[in-house]
């Protein structure tokens, strides 16, 4: 029975791996094909099935006429995502610590309501927010600018950071803060010197969520920009003209995935040892 279960497990993992990896493989082979190679049907093996070509990749980075600028949008995406994630994480962590440790009350409104207020920002569909955001940015003169996008992304990412971190802080025993305070820390020092160093797993999770959501967003990047500022997802989609350049599309899609893969590898080990045992029994 046990060997059979083990076999079943391996088979299941293999099937899932194929399911996950196959699209990447497909995109990878397509990115090395020419127009003819793509229309000739599904082929996977270079030099045997089809003749590989670097045309698509050259087109993305080359400066010749007719090449596509992917570097600019990539840099824009990087700046917007990283700065919005960093600010959201910083503010969100502070907000979450406050909501987790201190009691607020204004009439019938208390901590749970404040926490829900943050989460509720993500309940409505993004379309609802598009017009208000457009009008607000227009009023501020920030449409089609990096700064405008950063502001909007902070509004989108902050709830995620708050949500993850409130839950994380609630699982750290309050006695840890109290011990730090007794040992001579002011409440802020207790947060900074004791709680924060023990919150790395939570920060990593919240950070990943922020980066992934920010990096992958297409809707707001599309509706709040015109021509001056272009983010990567919009740039990739705008490759799609009367004739779809599948080869360039595949190459740029792969490029857009690379940062997330890098993040995943960097962060994996933190997720594994994500525990705060030692603070509680």
């Amino acid at each position, binding site marked *: 029975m046990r060997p059979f279960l083990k076999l079943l497990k391996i088979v299941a993992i293999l099937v899932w791996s194929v399911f996950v990896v196959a699209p990447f493989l497909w995109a990878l082979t397509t990115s090395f094909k020419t127009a003819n190679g793509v229309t000739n049907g599904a082929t996977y093996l270079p030099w045997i099935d089809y003749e590989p070509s670097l045309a698509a990749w050259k087109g993305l980075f080359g400066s010749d006429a007719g090449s596509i600028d992917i570097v600019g949008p990539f840099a824009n995406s990087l700046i917007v995502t990283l700065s919005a994630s960093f600010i959201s994480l910083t503010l969100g962590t502070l907000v979450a610590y406050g909501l987790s440790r201190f009691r607020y009350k204004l009439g019938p409104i208390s901590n749970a309501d404040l926490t829900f207020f943050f989460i509720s920002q993500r309940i409505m569909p993004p379309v609802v927010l598009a017009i208000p955001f457009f009008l607000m940015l227009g009023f501020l003169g920030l449409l089609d600018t990096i700064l405008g996008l950063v502001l909007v992304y902070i509004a989108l990412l902050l709830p995620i950071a708050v949500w993850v971190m409130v839950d994380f802080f609630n699982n750290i025993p309050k006695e840890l803060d109290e*011990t*730090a305070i*007794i*040992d001579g820390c002011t409440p802020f020092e207790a947060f900074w010197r004791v709680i924060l160093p*023990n919150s790395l797993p939570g920060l990593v999770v919240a950070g990943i969520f922020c980066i992934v959501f920010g990096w992958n967003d297409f809707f707001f990047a599309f509706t709040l920009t015109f021509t001056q500022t272009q983010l990567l997802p919009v740039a990739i989609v705008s490759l799609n003209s009367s004739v779809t350049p599948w080869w360039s599309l595949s190459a740029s899609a792969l490029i857009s995935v690379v940062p997330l893969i890098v993040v995943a590898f960097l962060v994996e080990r933190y997720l594994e040892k994500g525990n705060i045992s*030692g603070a509680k029994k």
Partner: protein
Amino acid sequence: MKKAIFPEQKNNDFKMNYIIRNLSIGEGETAHLCNVNLELPTAGVVTIIGRTLAGKTTLLKVMAGLQAVDSGTFYHNGKDLLKTPAWKRRVGMVYQQFVNYPHLNVRDNIAFPLRRSGMGRDEIEQKLEYVSTLLGLGDYMERRPDELSGGQQQRVALARSLVKDSYLLLLDEPLVNLDYKLREQLREEFRRLFKDSKDRLVVYATTEPDEAMILQGHVVVLHEGRVIQAGPCADVYHYPANIISAKIFNDPPMNMFGGTIADGLIQVAGGLSIKTPSHLKDLAPGSYVFGIRAIDVKLGGKAASADLVLAEVNGSTTVLHLDMDGQNMVLEMQGVHHFDTAARVDFSLLESRLYAFDTERGELLAAPLIKSLSGQGGLNGKN
């Protein structure tokens, strides 16, 4: 609530330097602390004893500065401590959970409060050396708290609160989460550590009378947020102020039963009849609540018989739960013995060890005579 004051002790000329007045948190039924008045010495050991949710932790947190109060004052040497924030109070606290900094190794854990206070590197090393030897942590200094056993973790927490220059050390049921053997062992260590606490007051909260007895010093009995009794350990043991105090400060709780005194005899409901002992002779005929410790109930003697409901072995003693026609009686005897439950057993009471309490208010009226006791005068004129 009457003000609870420690009677002066002849052999120890301490001064009452911690003064708590009219301290209250919460109101009515849900009050955490209700009009607490206490005067505590500036050094030595004070045990706060009370059942779960009696308000022990809340009281300790007030002393530490972690808990806001609704009303009342807390003075130390004439200074209002409630106005001093916790991080400036120079107190130490050990929780019943093992609270250490998970991201620091044992060395940095213990050094944390010292570094916060700006102590020099050499002095910190000296103190670390001293306290790690004292608590046997020398071999674990480089480990993280989660790599230690529960007892070791609690030692680290204790070490951290001992090294720093604090004038008040608060321990909140520090042994409750440890297994039996470790508890016995650490209990002994506590006694050794706190025996000569000359420059700081150790406040030790517990539910276990044994721990108070081992630590000696003073005892504060807390019940439902109120101070029921306060005084030197021996006084509280020998002269429990009332029925609640007698139950809380004895394990198993002191047996209580109603009875009447008439014609030189004490008549108890279950048909038990006892000759009135000399220390109860002055009581007027009438109804009383009588109390007797489980160790003063003896098997045999044929004074009364009862059904054996439960026999449990507790460490090195055997505890029998008896049912005397509806009146429960607990008997504790040395050694491990085995009994068939539901059997009928004969037992007798050491009448010289009987306590008598008021039936209405439950206050102590008469207690057994004690041969030699330093605090004899601390009875507040009640016998």
